[in-house]
């Protein structure tokens, strides 16, 4: 009931409440401006332009553990600072203050009582006379112990994060270096020079962090014959690289024993199947072949296990696949049939082996597969200028795919150099 009466009170009642509040505030705030200055929740300090302390409040004196008589007229502002703070003051704070007339929120440490350091935030402003001459410097000092502790944590956190980042960058660099070395070990450093033949190769790595599974090689079998192969191990990464390594050396060893392409692939099939019988299957596709340069041409015998057919660019224009249909993936089944094919390279002809990174690249606005037809057309419309020229043209093609090329891609091109243009006797002597 009483409450109700009170609340229904009209304006004069409210006026009385405010008067009462004023009275209460006044009794609390009986302190003068001087009292407010002395016991403010921050330190106040006035110094002459040379830094000599002219006035200081009790709050700050308490923090410093000093008597007014020790400070006023006897000490300079910098005397209140730790040595590091002094250096910072002289090299940063004072120049800034002199140039700008005020400086705010600078973190410094003061020499607090009992030999302790107390982190503070300092703001200073120069008071000038009416004609702009500097008279004195007014400074407020805020207790920043909590804030500084928090900042220390932040700094520690930042340092730890930076250290971790440096470490991980170093690790990543080391890893990439190791991967690059390993990757190089899966490919010939450079193709050997084969008398009467020209060769070109290219390897595109999709990611420096991932070992690719593509491989190729070219090596002599005996005085007149050369073996070559190119293939693609399923998958990526270290496991794929291990298969690639096994595959590469198995092919080389098998070829020395019996260079018949089907026999070589059969040996590889047995080895891979044996090695990876238990657990996750590991297999690959490959073309293996033997080249026999003869008088002005080269005989080629090759066999394919599940690999895209080789393409031949003919000296007289045009390009055709050398079909090897039905060859099985290598390493899947204990026994696998492989398909053999043979052809003859005439001067100016180029045999191209490639992995499906090329034909399965995504192109155009609808991200369609590049495809074997497009590859044949591309090759057919290039001038027949030999293996290296063809590889260069295809390298440009791969680059034009941009991010449409997301797989590793290997190219190996072999050919018989075109006969030198016959020097006709145009200028008979």
């Amino acid at each position, binding site marked *: 009931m009483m409450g109700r009466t009170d609340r229904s009170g009209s304006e004069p009642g409210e006026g009385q409440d405010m008067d009462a509040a004023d009275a209460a505030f006044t009794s609390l705030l009986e302190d003068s401006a001087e009292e407010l200055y002395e016991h403010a929740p921050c330190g106040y300090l006035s110094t002459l332009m040379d830094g000599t302390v002219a006035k200081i409040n009790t709050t700050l004196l308490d923090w410093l553990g000093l008597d007014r008589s020790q400070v006023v007229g006897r000490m300079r502002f910098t005397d209140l600072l730790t*040595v*590091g*703070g*002094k*250096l910072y003051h*002289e*090299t940063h704070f004072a*120049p800034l203050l002199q140039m700008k007339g005020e400086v705010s*929120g600078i973190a410094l440490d003061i020499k607090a009582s009992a030999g302790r350091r107390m982190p503070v935030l300092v703001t200073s402003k120069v008071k000038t006379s009416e004609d702009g001459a500097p008279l004195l410097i007014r400074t407020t000092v805020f207790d920043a112990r909590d804030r500084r502790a928090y900042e220390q944590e932040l700094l520690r956190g930042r340092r730890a994060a930076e250290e971790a980042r440096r470490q991980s960058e170093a690790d990543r660099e080391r890893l990439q270096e190791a991967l690059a070395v390993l990757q190089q070990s899966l490919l010939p450093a450079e193709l050997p020079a084969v008398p009467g033949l020209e060769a070109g190769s290219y390897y595109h790595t999709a990611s420096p962090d991932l070992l690719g599974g593509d491989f190729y090689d070219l090596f002599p079998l005996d005085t007149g014959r050369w073996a070559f192969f190119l293939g693609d191990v399923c998958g990526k990464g270290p496991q794929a690289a291990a298969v690639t390594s096994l595959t590469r050396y198995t092919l080389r060893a098998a070829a020395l024993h019996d260079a018949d392409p089907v026999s070589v692939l059969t040996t590889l099939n047995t080895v891979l199947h044996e090695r990876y019988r238990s657990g996750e299957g590991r297999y690959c596709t490959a073309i293996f072949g033997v080249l026999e340069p003869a008088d002005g041409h080269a005989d080629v015998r090759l066999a394919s296990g599940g690999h895209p057919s080789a393409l031949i660019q003919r000296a007289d224009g045009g390009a055709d696949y050398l079909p090897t249909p039905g060859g099985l993936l290598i390493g899947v089944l204990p026994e696998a049939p492989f398909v053999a094919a043979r052809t003859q390279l005439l001067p100016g002809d180029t045999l191209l082996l490639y992995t499906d990174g090329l034909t399965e690249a995504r192109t155009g606005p609808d991200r369609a597969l590049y495809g074997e037809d497009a590859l044949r057309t591309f090759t057919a419309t290039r001038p027949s200028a030999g293996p290296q020229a063809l590889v260069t043209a295809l390298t440009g093609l791969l680059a034009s795919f941009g991010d449409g090329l997301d797989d590793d891609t290997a190219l190996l091109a072999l050919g018989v150099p075109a006969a030198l243009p016959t020097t006709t006797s145009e200028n008979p002597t």
Partner: protein
Amino acid sequence: MDIGRRNNVTVTGRAGGPVLVLAHGFGCDQNMWRLVAPALAEQYQVVLFDYVGSGRADPSAWDERRYSSLEGYALDVTEICEELDLRDVTFVGHSVSAMVGVLAAAKAPRRISRLVMVAPSPRYIDDDGYRGGFSAEDIDELLESLESNYLGWSAAMAPVIMGNVDRPELGQELTASFCATDPDMARVFARTTFLSDSREDLRTVTVPTLILECRQDVIAPREVGAYVRDVVPGSRLVTLEATGHCPQLSAPQATAGAITDFIAAA
């Protein structure tokens, strides 16, 4: 490389007049000379610059190894002298730059003919029988200070960048960059400044040298000023009626006057 852009070189003053190169010390940049440069510009051609790692010098030119020794900073000076083909230069170096000047004068004797050392100290850390005023721990404390203030910079500088500048003659760009150095570079410069020992180099000075000290300077106390005078052959020491470490800011007229008198007499 464009040295002028790298070191944010500005050339003012009387074209064809005697050349003054004014070099800032650790902490800020060429704007340290803002209050003395106009007076000096009446008579002299005044060359101002920022060391790489300070002010508005090109940060991409930073090379931690080079700038971990005073030689690296001296190279900045001699490269500027070469680039501008300066001759008969009076090199005015503030604080650590006084020692940089000693090295630069030794490197380019045909270009630098006089040295003015403003509040110099060849060695900040106390040593056997030598009082520089600081201990190695003090310098660590300064590095801490640099670090904790780096956190505050963005907040402290924001209002300035927003354009609340009371003294328009300083310009917003100045206040935004003045003393606001990259903390990593500042740390390297601080270490180089406060941990170097150039006392032996002082003995090699062969050019006329003026030493300017303040009556009261916590960084380069008066006994250090006297030490420098005693060691540098034929040098003159002038004590300015000023306090602090930056007389070019706190007593610009007296500083400019002392430099002018020295060049006239030398």
